[in-house]
């Protein structure tokens, strides 16, 4: 089931978007070159690993959020990009509290979980604001274009496979497969996870990979040593 969200004029709505997918906007971050964005991403992520004091953490949160919203991304996009880290944050804070007690464990728990989110957000901004071609152009001096294309075409197909996953899970549940989260808490149902969900998903993945490679080949991908890069329409 897709997550529910309330918006004015509607009683209950669901999102049909996915995290970390390119968003077409006219923002200062979109106008930055891919090389610059990779540099900023590396710097902010490195700082996220290094911060120790509350003030350093607060300052880095502020800078990262300014960078995120400068890309004209919304708080809703931020929620989509980081929602899975909320679970991680809860688990990390609980573990610290169990290990060191509430008074001593709460700050290291919060710091570590925020650091993980801060490490990840600059990468999300890079993917949200940089087109495949720009990224390949930015990386062409360090990575062969055939390799970088493989990486970015994989990102392009993330929403496709999430939809496939949803469709397969739906079809199998209606046939009696035990795939609900509470059913999967029982190890006896883990067989269903593999047979009814992962196996058909792998079959679809192989089939789709074959279709994608044929499509690329039919459009002369890899037939020449080098390729040109179209700067695109902004």
């Amino acid at each position, binding site marked *: 089931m897709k997550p529910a969200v309330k918006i004015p004029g509607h009683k209950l709505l*669901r999102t049909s978007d996915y995290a970390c997918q390119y968003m*077409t906007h006219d923002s200062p971050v979109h106008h930055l070159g891919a090389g610059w964005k990779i540099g900023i991403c590396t710097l902010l992520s490195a700082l996220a690993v290094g911060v120790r004091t509350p003030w350093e953490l607060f300052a880095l949160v502020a800078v990262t959020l300014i960078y995120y919203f400068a890309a004209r991304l919304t708080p809703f996009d931020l929620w989509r990009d980081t929602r899975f880290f909320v679970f991680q944050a809860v688990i990390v804070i609980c573990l610290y509290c169990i290990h060191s007690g509430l008074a001593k464990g709460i700050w290291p728990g919060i710091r570590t979980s925020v650091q993980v989110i801060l490490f990840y957000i600059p990468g999300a901004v890079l993917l949200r604001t940089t087109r495949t071609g720009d990224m390949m152009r930015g990386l062409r001096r360090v990575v062969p274009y055939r390799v970088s294309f493989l990486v970015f075409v994989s990102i*392009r197909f993330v929403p496709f496979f999430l939809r496939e996953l949803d469709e397969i899970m739906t079809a199998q549940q209606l046939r009696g497969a035990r795939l*609900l989260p509470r059913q999967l808490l029982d190890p006896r149902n883990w067989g269903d996870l593999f047979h009814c969900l992962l196996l*058909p998903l792998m079959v679809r993945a192989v089939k789709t990979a074959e279709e994608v490679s044929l499509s690329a080949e039919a459009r*002369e*991908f890899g037939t020449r040593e080098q390729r040109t890069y179209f700067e695109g329409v902004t």
Partner: protein
Amino acid sequence: MDSDILKIDRLSYSYPGASIPALMDVSCSIGAGECICLTGDSGCGKTTLLSAIKGLLRGGSYLKTIKIAVPPGVNNWSTPVGLVFQNSESQILCTTVSEEVAFGPENLCAPPEEIALRVQKSLRAVGLDGCETRHVERFSAGQKQRLTIASVMSMNPSLLLLDEPTSQLDSQGKQDLCELLAGFKSHGYTIIMAEHDPRPFTSIIDRYLPIADGRIGCSTSSLPESGRYEPRNAGKMRPVVVDDLPVIIDVQQLCLSYPETGTALNKVSLKVRQGERIHLSGSNGAGKSSLLRCLAGLETPGSGMVKLAGITNPRSEHLPGKVGVLFQNPSRQLFAESVHDEVAFTLRRMGFSRQKTERVVAEALSLCGISQLAERAPLTLSFGEQHRVALAAIVAPQPEVLLLDEPFAGLDFPQRLALLDILAEMPGRYGTTVVIASHDELPDHTWADRILKLNGGQLDETGR
């Protein structure tokens, strides 16, 4: 002939490990500017022939003579043959429209200023100019089909090949595509399309080349066996359902919206009685799949009520055995080691005894005409056979309601008729209510008791 753009002489091809050739002694000539349609049933060799012309066949045994004449004036940044595949979803490789259209010319090393011109020209030709910066995920099926054509046209092909271009399109989409191809033809492009139902394109097709079992027949200027495509008007007739049977599907004031696409269902109300056969029609994006998902408990409506097989606002985990749903692509539903195990899966989960399971599986396999496949591995079967296995698996528990979402996609005309015949048996045998959601008209006009049309999220009854 000097004006021939394509000449094939005694082409034969066998896929690796296959004992029967996919193509045998295929010979033909295509003149410049012609529009040719390859016709034939699923698996007859149409896609293989197009792949051979494009040079995409790998491995296998190959005897070929394919000559493609490159017209004068074609530069190094062009490709002689452009191929548009059947599934537009998996051939769009980039995130934005302009990137996607530029991908081919970039691979041909065309200079950026030349690519810019081609992107502009190709998008204008398919009516997508102004969409350059849009994200491809937001496009409808018809728009995606147009985008894939633009991304091939930007490589300036002399010969345009299209494999089942209408398989995902509704009637308006088919008409738009026909107008688009007519425009290309008037500009001198040579077009070869593979279609098992070429009726939407009869106005632009110059010749039909029938293919059967890998062999090509004599070309004709009129649609071969045109009668086979006519919807049947004298199928398995039966008395119309009487009004005193219980209501099995009761939908009241159902509303559903999505943030990005807006209203999907707007105050939909519907009553369906036990054993009724319903055709839920409507164009792409009309809300058919959303309604089916609400019925099957896979979507929580914004407001309104669904009562299905006695369960109010059902959830999917309550429905196995009571409601069967067949989704578009059967391979999503198949995982077992044999067809028998696939069909028996739900029955075992419902706690059927071994003897009863064996009896019911045999009955379902017989109903779907696949008893001979019982020991075969489902994933090694052809698309049409997999479709029948998936159907047998949901039919076996003898559900009270059967929901089918675009069940005709990828099936040829005889396979569609056979599917309808199987579904026609269900109400009489098990009292099952059958709902088919499809943008295509049914190949048998007598099949449905009622035709319901969804338009902009609202439901109208259009009779039978």
